[in-house]
């Protein structure tokens, strides 16, 4: 059973008079209840756009997003609004994502005011305090303002706000990238504990390989708005197949400085999303790229039963037919 499914989603942006930026180019993946799926890729690969498309905070150009069996793209504004009790997001910037004029208690309470209007003020207060306790903040934060607390505490407030309506699905858009390392570990542990307690599904967006390896069940590697490789995290890390994934993994540093790693390097720069190359988006930079790569775009195909790759050089899984 899947909770969230994106099906061949496209999104481009255009500034007035500017070129069209193709941020997301045909992305499909799904997330089961209680599962953490990570999206990894460099900046500009369309990760954060997907984060918003998965919740239909942006309108899709093409494709479909399903949540809990419902097609989000066909819902009215109000139907979608009511669903936001079950699916929500935690942002990268803890301070910017909190209203500076709103006290912490009010901020965490707001989703309840919107979605659970039958609650009395006392019941709401109880739920807020409960949510604050869950993120290890406690009731004494209730009357504080966002600028009066630390970055890690601000992010806990963001998580408490997401948690208070007891959702099924939370998008985590680089939730730890602006935090100190020690705080980062606390937040990741907190997210893992909450997932166990409430059977939450996470879409975890990150550019940090180590974080992703630590938190995710499955991983989607993104390049230029496409998923180039998807599979169980352990499997992809142990046996990366796509040249881009290989380059990405070899770029990370080991904790042990004595370990000499063989670096797998790509040539050139990431192509502009305003002017996508034909064929495989990586072919100009890939050491094994040839004319066949430039000729045709290769969709994701199964490499093993659980592991899929979008590279023409990677053999098809025995049971899978090559897409025409």
């Amino acid at each position, binding site marked *: 059973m899947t909770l969230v499914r994106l099906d061949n989603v496209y999104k481009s942006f255009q500034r007035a008079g500017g070129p069209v930026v193709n941020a997301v180019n045909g992305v499909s993946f799904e997330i089961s209840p209680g599962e953490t799926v990570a999206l990894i890729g460099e900046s500009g690969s369309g990760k954060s756009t997907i984060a918003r498309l998965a919740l239909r905070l942006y309108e899709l150009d093409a494709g479909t997003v399903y949540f809990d069996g419902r097609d989000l793209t066909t819902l009215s504004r109000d139907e979608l609004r009511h669903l936001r009790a079950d699916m929500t997001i935690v*942002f990268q910037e803890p301070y*910017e994502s909190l209203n500076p004029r*709103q006290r912490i208690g009010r901020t965490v309470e707001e989703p309840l005011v919107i979605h659970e209007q039958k609650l009395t003020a006392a019941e709401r207060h109880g739920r807020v305090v409960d949510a604050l306790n869950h993120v290890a903040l406690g009731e004494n934060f209730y009357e504080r303002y966002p600028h009066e607390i630390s970055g890690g505490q601000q992010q806990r407030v*963001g998580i408490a706000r997401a948690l208070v309506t007891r959702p099924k699905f939370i998008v985590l858009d680089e939730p730890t990238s602006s935090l100190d390392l020690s705080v980062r570990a606390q937040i990741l542990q907190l997210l893992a504990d909450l997932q166990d307690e409430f059977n939450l599904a996470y879409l975890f967006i990150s550019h940090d390989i180590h974080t992703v390896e630590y938190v995710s069940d499955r991983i989607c590697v993104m390049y230029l708005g496409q998923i180039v490789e998807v599979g169980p995290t352990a499997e992809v890390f142990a046996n990366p197949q796509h040249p881009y994934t290989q380059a990405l993994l070899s770029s990370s540093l080991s904790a042990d400085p004595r370990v000499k790693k063989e670096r797998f390097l790509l040539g050139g720069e990431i192509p502009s999303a305003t002017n996508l190359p034909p064929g495989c988006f990586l072919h100009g930079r890939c050491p094994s790229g040839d004319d066949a790569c430039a000729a045709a775009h290769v969709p994701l195909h199964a490499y093993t039963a659980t592991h899929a790759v979008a590279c023409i050089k990677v053999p098809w899984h025995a049971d899978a037919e090559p897409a025409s």
Partner: protein
Amino acid sequence: MASRGLVGALRRIDPIAAAGVLLVISFIVIAYAVPYSPIDDANAHRESLVGPGKYWFGTDNLGRDVFRRVLAGARLDLPLALSGMAVSLILGVPLGLLASQKSRWAERFMRGLDMFQAFPLLVLAIVLVALAGNHLYMVVVAIALINTPRFIRLVRSEALSLRESRFVEAAVAIGATRARVMFRHLLPNTTGTILVQASLTAAQSIVVIAALAYLGIGIRPPQASWGAMIKDGSQGITTGQWWIAIFPGIAVFICVLLFNQIADRLEKVLSRGARG
């Protein structure tokens, strides 16, 4: 909640803002408490001395006591300026928030506002008076006509940039209605700009009242108005009778200063929650 929070906060946190509000109110009360009749007063005195004595601020070219007229000016000038400002605020702020939405309606509304503002608004005020008759409340209408578009533009541009911010996106993501986004998230973060604009509006309205009085709209002679007194008195400055224009000028100056101080203090009180 807003008014209780405001008044309560004022008393607790900011005695200076409270004192400013009290001063403005006492200005108006004193103006009404001191009896004044322009007709009786006219031609009664011919002394034009300035200084302690019978006429503290001297007398004007019709022999009227400038001190009394300055006090009496507060009777109409201040309430009209403040209510003109209040009407502009009450109309302009919600319209500005609404117009900050991405919709074709908002776009059309702003183009309509461009056309409206291109029209000379003082002329429009005269046309309105010609159609509706010359009532004192036409002054308030005129002030609102001139200032509401300014509030709309100001609030809209502030709200547009706030709509790009992460916390507004977060509000949408938790399912906030458009009204909630506007009044719970955008509005509280624009109060500083609104207050500054409000104080400027109140100050500038005194000048507008004077201009209208000159056109015979609203306050008509011999009723006292600071703007009209400055205008009349300005002719005397070249011939040495400086006091006729200077004292109402000082009254306007003090009021503008008071309005600015109150707005400044209010902003500080309201932004206790925000950084900077």
